């Protein structure tokens, strides 16, 4: 991949790779604006971003000329209601492409918990009512934000009507009919922050991120609030991966696109201490489905680090060779050898929310 989009607290940056390596490509777009999500649609090259203005609400922009110009489009909007706490869009947390057989269809996962679909490249949005009206919705709660949010949208490459969502905090949800109906899945996860009798409730889970292996989509990796999980049935059930050093806490996970037993993680101490273990930023990698992990740190800070890698800020390319990782401290690294060695692209970016290779 030759392009890397970097969505930050203060704008959308782009890095490109040329004969000399990676370089920042021009001035950032949307300077000083918080960019919360970015999609470079592999089907047609359209770039979409979500912005969260501190004052003026969430916005949605599209570029059809590779970022040279941008067009503001309507945001996903919640239905009007007379309820005193009626919902309003709080964040576009992720933007995902529909299937290869659904040109122009994109999905938006949002806070406060709504899934939106557009069939015209973001011109119009429709709230998925079947998910929004789930009887369990009153039990959904925020994980790090005031309200629940959808951060993971996995469209099964074998069947675009089959989708898996990760919601903080409402667990993992599956549709097999394109969103006409939903069922909570993700059995096997345990929420230590709930009372013991509720800890195994699939709806109470906080999967920080779900990521499926592109070539083996039944293999889904999960960095959960309380540990690392792996699924072999597209998220139906998960098995906890235990004894992970230096920590099983974090936000990000990258599933290898072709090797289902390989995944990378970016560990931190724990939920109440979101910094690297012993101040040493590392990446962990398993190649055997979670039985063992290696710790990778070449090229990452040698001194004490306080970097946290947020859920959408650790990504891989389509081959598994290239990885990119950005931190809330504004550091950005890439690896061209599957995470063995890392090169720092910048130490001076704003806090990084999301990355996207293109």
């Amino acid at each position, binding site marked *: 991949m030759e392009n890397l989009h970097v969505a930050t607290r203060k704008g959308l940056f782009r890095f490109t790779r040329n004969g000399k390596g990676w370089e920042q490509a021009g001035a950032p777009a949307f300077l000083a604006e918080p960019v919360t999500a970015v999609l470079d649609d592999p089907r047609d090259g359209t770039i979409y971003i979500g912005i969260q203005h*501190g004052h003026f609400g969430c916005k949605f922009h599209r570029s059809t000329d590779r970022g040279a110009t941008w067009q503001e489009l*309507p945001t996903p909007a919640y239905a009007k209601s007379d309820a005193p706490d009626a919902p309003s869009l709080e964040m576009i947390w992720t933007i995902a492409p529909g299937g290869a057989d659904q040109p122009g269809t994109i999905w938006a996962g949002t806070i406060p918990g709504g899934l939106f679909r557009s069939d015209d490249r973001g011109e119009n949005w429709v709230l998925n009512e079947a998910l929004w009206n789930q009887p369990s919705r009153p039990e959904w709660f925020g994980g790090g934000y005031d309200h629940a949010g959808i951060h993971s949208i996995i469209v099964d490459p074998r069947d675009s009507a089959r989708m898996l969502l990760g919601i903080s905090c409402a667990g993992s949800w599956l549709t097999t009919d394109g969103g006409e109906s939903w069922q909570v899945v993700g059995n096997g996860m345990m929420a230590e922050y709930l009372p013991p009798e509720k800890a195994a409730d699939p709806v109470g889970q906080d999967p920080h991120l779900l990521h499926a292996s592109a070539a083996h989509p039944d293999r889904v990796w999960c960095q959960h609030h309380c540990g690392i999980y792996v699924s072999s049935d597209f998220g139906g059930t998960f098995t906890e991966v235990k004894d992970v050093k230096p920590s099983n806490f974090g936000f990000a996970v990258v599933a290898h696109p072709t090797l289902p037993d390989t995944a990378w993680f970016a560990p931190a101490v724990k939920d109440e201490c979101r910094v690297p273990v012993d101040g040493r930023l590392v990446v962990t990698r398993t190649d055997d489905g979670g039985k063992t992990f290696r710790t990778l740190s070449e090229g990452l800070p040698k001194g004490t680090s306080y970097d946290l890698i947020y859920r959408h800020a650790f990504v891989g390319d389509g081959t598994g060779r290239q990885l990119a990782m950005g931190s809330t401290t504004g550091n950005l690294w890439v690896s061209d050898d599957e995470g063995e060695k890392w090169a720092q692209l910048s130490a001076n970016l704003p806090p990084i929310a999301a990355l996207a290779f293109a």
Partner: protein
Amino acid sequence: MATIRFTANLAKHRETRAIDAAGDTVRGVVEAGLADDPLLRGYVLDDQDRLRKHVNIFIDGAMIADRLRLSDPVAPDADIYVMQALSGG
């Protein structure tokens, strides 16, 4: 007609020339004045048509009281200022 004026901080996102609009309440004036630019409207009002949490509206120098229904009365020649709150920054 009342006149709606916008904080300069909005100008980098949308065209924000002063708008003349008629209405007896803030709701009436704002809806009439922003009807031609639904995207600009979205910078001022949320999905439920409430005033955004970190946006303020002043009528002739007085902050409005009803941020939910925008029912504050508006004199025919009032100046309405849409301002960015210091909160939320």
